[in-house]
């Protein structure tokens, strides 16, 4: 049984039909990359799983239970975490408060903060600063850290390397790679080499449908399959 399974998922924004029957599955313990051009619906897929934009049709199951119709916070409490593409840190909360908000059990706060600060030492330096005044990249780190501390079973990660300096990308990659030992991930990433490196398997999304998938082991970024769907 897959940990997460999407079958025939259709999602709309108002009248525009974005997902036109997405099928995919994520097994316990693996990292799955979701690739595709801008605007094909990658982010929408993640939002649909979280029920932020509920599907109009199709099934989404997590540990064999349907997520469709649940409230987002209920989905989250079942062990799904989200690292959104536009960061969405709480600008008026301090760095530390941002992290605390993601840790449900008061007893876990200390460990959680430790984990975050070890992964991104800059955050410890800035723990009392209002998150809104961090630089763009620092905010991205905070967003990632906030996803990691939540003690989730499945992390939905949307473009974690966006706007990061190469060196930090390495840090992020390492943090994610380390985290992937404990947590299953569904990863959207434009940086294809990075994505392929982190992931065990990949799906390619085009025009709201999964058009291809496979193992990452033997493919490289300039594989014909990617060229077809990712280049113009």
């Amino acid at each position, binding site marked *: 049984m897959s940990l997460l399974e999407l079958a025939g998922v259709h999602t709309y924004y108002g009248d525009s039909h974005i997902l036109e029957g997405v099928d995919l599955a994520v097994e316990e313990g693996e990292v799955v990359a979701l690739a595709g051009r801008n605007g094909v619906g990658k982010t929408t897929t993640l939002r649909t799983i*979280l029920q*932020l934009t509920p599907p109009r049709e199709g099934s989404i199951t997590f540990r064999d239970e349907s997520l469709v119709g649940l*409230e*987002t*916070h209920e*989905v*989250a*409490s079942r062990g799904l*975490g*989200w690292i*959104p593409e536009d960061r*969405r840190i*709480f*600008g*008026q*909360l301090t760095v530390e*408060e*941002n992290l*605390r*908000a*993601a840790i*449900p059990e*008061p007893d876990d706060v200390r460990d959680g903060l430790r984990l975050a600060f070890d992964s991104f030492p800059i955050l410890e330096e800035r723990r009392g600063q*209002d998150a*809104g*005044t961090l*630089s*763009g990249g620092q*905010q991205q780190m905070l967003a990632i850290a*906030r996803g990691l501390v*939540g003690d989730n079973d499945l992390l939905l990660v949307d473009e974690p390397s966006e706007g990061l300096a190469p060196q930090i990308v390495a840090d992020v990659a390492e943090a994610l790679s380390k985290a992937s030992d404990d947590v299953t991930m569904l990863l959207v990433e434009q940086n294809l080499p990075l994505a392929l490196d982190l992931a065990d398997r990949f799906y390619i999304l085009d025009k709201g449908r999964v058009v291809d998938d496979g193992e990452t082991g033997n493919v490289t970024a300039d594989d014909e399959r990617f060229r077809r769907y990712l280049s113009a």
Partner: protein
Amino acid sequence: MILEALAEFLTLSELGGVIVSGLAKSALYVMIASGLTLIFGLMGVLNFAHGSLTMVGAYLGGLLMVVTVTGGTAPLTRLGLFFVAIVVVFALLTVLGGAIETTIIRPLYDRPPIYQILLTFGLTLVIEEVVRIVLGIYDLQPLSDWQAALATKPQFLREPVALGPVSAGWMSLFQILLGIVTVVGIWAFLTKTRYGLYIRAGSEDTEMASALGIDVRQVFTVVFALGIGLAGAAGTLLMWDPTWGASVPLAAETLLPAFIVVIVGGLGTFRGTVVAALVVGMADAVTTWWFQNAIQFTGLPELVLFLVLVVTLIVRPQGLFGVEEVGGH
């Protein structure tokens, strides 16, 4: 003339009296405004119905007192019953607040804040007319204070007490005490509980907070309900004070000062609200003194409250403790 008045104003007994009455007013303002601050500052909902609900609280509190107190009830029993009434009214209005939030405020969160202002504005019209209808049934005059409720106050609260050269009323001291209790209670709730953090996170980004497992809706319901509960509790306190009293105009009389306090203090800061209540309460007490003793202009007290608002916003556009907008990235 003015100088003479100034000399009198600065005597210990006059100044002391003004300060005590200023503190008492501040305590009332803080009680009136704290519910509004919670709802406004944290949820971004400017609750126009706040004054009306304070008014409802005053009548409900009065009703409880009128029903339970008889001519022979001992002063301490009256005081005890009063605390029971505050708790009951708080509970009742909390439930009412929860109901209002879940039924009509909730659908509006993803709309611009103006819609919440509008909705609660409409609610005010409804609440006030319903109260009028009910008062009509019992033949109570909506414009004047409910005297039977005032009569349940124990005698000693009407009496003066000497604090050194300053003479103050027991009522003022009682109000100051309740004001302090309210402030401490709310402060502890916001900073010592996880709920406070959830509330602030939820008010910034609902989607993100819910994706972290926070039941934002429930958080908002609780905040709104508590805010309304506080409005009701404040109303019950006002019901015993002849300068306010339970009457329909109480709604408007409390709403504008509460707005002023919240704005002067700065959005979303409870600390700001407390300080602003002090500023506004003192300004009120001082102008009241000057109006009564030296200046004939009848609009003075009202004018000064609005001038405090205007001047504060000119000098500190974000209010006393408001945060400046976070710069763009």
